[in-house]
């Protein structure tokens, strides 16, 4: 690959007053590649992206785009004309316009006459090119679409402009894993058409999944330029980013908590919308992860617990007493602490000092008019020491100069000051760089070790699995049993957390199988000596568990027969028979086990029946694992 670079950045610097955001940034983008721009928060990634896209004027250095030298003062409009488009975290979607109008919005700023029909077609073409025609109906108003879809509209906008250079600044921050993989599909399509994509991110897995090359920034300087992604591993990248070794995010010992007292217990909890049937137990000192995608009802369930959303169904008991919070004060007084997902919109009072921000829950919990701030100073100092927030920073006049990690620490002090027994955390590490993440992880484990029960929500399943003792999957507002975090991996969790509607085809396949045998069939996700029932036939026979139930291989002969995955019929003590097939995807990764039971060994070829059914699922990308295909009639 020695084609003419699309973008070349040489020794670019940027100063804001006395602050140097960039010292010497170097970067080259070639056509047909996805190039990661990686670094910790404040390393200068977004500043550099802003300079390339004309949103920020550079202070020094040279920039060429498509071989043309670009003057330091360079407007976004000139950038668009030069073929550079950027999608930022904050979407600039006009809510009252339709999807297609938003896609062609920048065209309104161009000279010349425009016909609505042409523009609409142009929008349709851009959306088609991305492969999102089904998800982005042209005439839907943008007020009615999800955050993920808004992001896609922004990307379509850039495509409609015909940009050859597409900058995606942390595009996956608000996306679920499924949405992210669809976005990656679209990025791949653009790459193959010869566009150059700059992917600004600090999520390692994503960088390894989609990028060809990587440029690493540290403290405003390029420390690695245009390295091939294959030449690096995760540990090496982290070293480049922080300039030192940091402790692993995942390795840790989890003490078992199942025998400790239950602090919070939910049974059949529901609200008017989004949450339908949630049940879970949270033990003292335990971290339970809610494994769900955006829109699964996970944040809404958190809101019920903290008194922000009325509960319409079910019961909750907290420390053994019935609990039905009517307000956030009540939740706080009963011992529930809460860190909502969006720090700036839901937590921080921008006009308050750091100290008063920390005292906000204290303020809300006061019963008399007096502030009693002074009486809390010692507690604040103690907790600040515990979570390693320097005391001198407590007296800053605003949270604006705090990094994401520091903000989150301050907000943790806010919650801990109320001495909660249960902490509900919604996306506690969103927008926080890896260095600070490690500190927050250590802190949460430490708090749990001291007996605090933590309910954790995270879109980052790797994080969820690393931190939690147990995972409670949730989808479409319903919880599905509970899994032990060790022995479960991200792919399994993603499979379990998919919206139930998307399992319709799988359920039809299982029902069909059950009729052919005749018998019962179910799809299991194996997880550390247990089988999680993901879906099953609609016959409802009791020889196989219900959806969301878990079989322990050691305890159940059925589970043993199924988990073996050898495709043969095994006689069960109760006189019936069971068989299991391990199913894998095109990459050879197991996506589950199909389990079958029947009263007598049937005459039909069950192996062929499973294979034929699979061929109709997921465009035929699934197959029976070869090692287990020993079709042998018993």
């Amino acid at each position, binding site marked *: 690959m020695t084609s003419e670079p699309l973008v070349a950045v040489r020794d670019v610097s940027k100063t804001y007053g006395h602050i140097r955001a960039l010292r010497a940034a170097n970067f080259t983008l070639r056509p047909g590649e996805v190039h990661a721009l990686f670094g910790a928060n404040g390393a200068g990634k977004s500043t550099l992206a802003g300079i390339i896209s004309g949103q920020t004027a550079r202070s020094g250095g040279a920039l060429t785009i498509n071989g043309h030298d670009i003057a330091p003062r360079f407007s976004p409009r000139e950038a668009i004309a030069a073929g550079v488009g950027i999608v930022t975290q904050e979407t600039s979607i006009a809510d009252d316009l339709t999807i297609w109008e938003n896609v062609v919005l920048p065209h309104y700023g161009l000279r010349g006459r425009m016909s609505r029909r042409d523009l609409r077609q142009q929008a349709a073409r851009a959306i088609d090119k991305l492969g999102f025609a089904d998800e982005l109906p042209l005439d839907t108003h943008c007020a009615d679409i999800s955050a993920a879809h808004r992001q896609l509209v922004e990307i379509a906008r850039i495509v409609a402009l015909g940009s050859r250079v597409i900058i995606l600044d942390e595009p996956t921050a608000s996306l679920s894993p499924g949405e992210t993989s669809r976005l990656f599909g679209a990025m791949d399509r653009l790459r193959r058409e010869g566009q150059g994509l700059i992917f600004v991110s600090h999520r390692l897995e994503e960088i390894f999944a989609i990028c060809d090359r990587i440029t690493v920034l540290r403290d405003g300087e390029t420390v690695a330029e245009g390295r091939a992604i294959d030449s690096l591993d995760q540990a090496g990248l982290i070293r480049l980013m922080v300039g030192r070794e940091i402790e692993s995010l995942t390795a840790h010992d989890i003490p078992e908590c199942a025998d400790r007292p239950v602090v919070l217990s939910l049974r059949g909890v529901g609200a008017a919308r989004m949450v339908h049937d949630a049940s879970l137990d949270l033990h003292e000192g335990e971290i339970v992860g809610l494994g769900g995608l955006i829109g699964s009802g996970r944040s809404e369930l958190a809101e019920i617990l903290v008194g*922000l959303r009325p509960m319409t169904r079910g019961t909750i008991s907290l420390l053994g007493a019935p609990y039905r919070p009517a307000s956030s004060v009540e939740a706080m007084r009963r011992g529930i602490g809460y860190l909502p997902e969006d720090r700036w919109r839901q937590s921080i009072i921008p006009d308050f000092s750091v100290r008063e921000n920390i005292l906000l829950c204290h303020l809300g919990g006061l019963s008399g008019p007096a502030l009693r701030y002074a009486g809390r100073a010692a507690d604040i100092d103690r907790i600040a020491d515990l979570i390693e927030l320097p005391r001198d920073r407590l007296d800053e006049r605003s949270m604006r100069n705090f990094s994401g990690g520091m903000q989150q620490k301050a907000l943790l002090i806010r919650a801990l000051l109320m001495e909660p027994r249960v902490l509900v955390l919604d996306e506690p590490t969103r927008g926080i760089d890896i260095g600070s993440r490690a500190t927050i992880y250590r802190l949460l484990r430490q708090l749990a070790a001291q007996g605090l029960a933590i309910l954790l929500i995270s879109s980052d399943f790797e994080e969820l699995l690393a931190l939690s003792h147990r995972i409670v999957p949730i989808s479409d507002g319903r919880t599905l049993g509970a899994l032990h975090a060790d022995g479960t991996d991200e792919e399994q969790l993603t499979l379990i957390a998919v919206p139930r509607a998307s399992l319709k085809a799988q359920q039809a396949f299982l029902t069909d199988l059950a009729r052919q045998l005749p018998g019962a069939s179910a799809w299991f996700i194996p997880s550390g000596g247990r089988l999680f029932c993901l879906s099953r036939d609609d016959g409802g026979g009791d020889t196989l568990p219900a959806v969301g139930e878990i079989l322990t291989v050691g305890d159940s002969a059925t589970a043993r027969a199924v988990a073996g995955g050898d495709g043969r019929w095994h006689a069960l003590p109760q006189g019936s028979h069971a068989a299991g097939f391990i199913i894998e995807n095109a990459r050879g990764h197991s996506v589950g086990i199909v389990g079958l039971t029947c009263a007598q060994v049937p005459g039909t070829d069950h192996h062929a029946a499973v294979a034929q059914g699979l061929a109709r699922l997921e465009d035929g990308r699934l197959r029976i694992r070869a090692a287990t295909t020993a079709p042998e009639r018993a």
Partner: protein
Amino acid sequence: MTTMTHLKRFITILELRMVLLVLLLALVLSVASPHFLTSSNLYNLLDQSVVLGIVAIGMTFVVLTGGIDLSVGSVAGMTGIVLGLLLREMPIVPAVGLTLLVGALTGAISGALITFFGLASFVVTLGMLAIGRSLAYVLSGQRSISDIPDALSQLVYTEIFGIPLNVVILLVLYAAAWAYLTHTKGGRTIYALGSNPRAARIAGLNTVFYSILPYAVSGMLAAVAVTLISAQILSIDPLAGNLLELDAIAAVVIGGASLMGGRGSVVGTLFGVFILVMVRNGMNLLGVSPFWQGTAIGVIIIAAVLVEKLLAGRTR
């Protein structure tokens, strides 16, 4: 260098900036006119600050929550007529008490509509502006009420340590408002919900009550202001307090409050009131046509907002 940074820090503290500005204005005016720095003129300045100053406290409360109260002038007019009518039926103390209650209730109605239905404060209080003035005319029969008992004037002319009672009331109200806003749960809640209502609610603050309260305070203080006007001139006109809301908003804005809520202080507002009153007074002393006053005040308002904007941009 260090003196520069000290000066910078000094300038970024709102109240100190306002003191500086008032002193500077006083200096200019006392040089320009020999009549400015006389005790009778200074007394005059304070006296002229009372009505606007009291209404501006309520306006500060409302603006801190991110709202605006356009109805204060006409609520003053309406409650003034209510006071006049009540004084025909009962002694001064219960009459004034009931009048203040009517003012507070009127404000509370606006506040409740804004809070419970999520209506824009601009629109609700614009409606209340029309209703208040209309009721003032209806209740008064389009005539001034001039049979006010002379005893009411004691509210203005009684002196405490040589200071007229109305000025004492003004200063006491400011001290109370300052203490409330900076040192009580309610006050801090008002700031917090003006700055980020969602965060305030999630943190357990009583955002409903404290969103309504500022409007009730504003309505009640409009009634206090009109009571003092009546006490001074022993007559009540249904047009009393006309356009008072604009002066009050001007004082709050000049005093450094952000109309987006969350930022500002009553001390700043008090100096905003002083600046408005001094500019008017100074222009009168210098014999400038009163028609120029609007231009001068307009320029000051815009300049004040501009300075705030530039300073806010720098501290970020």
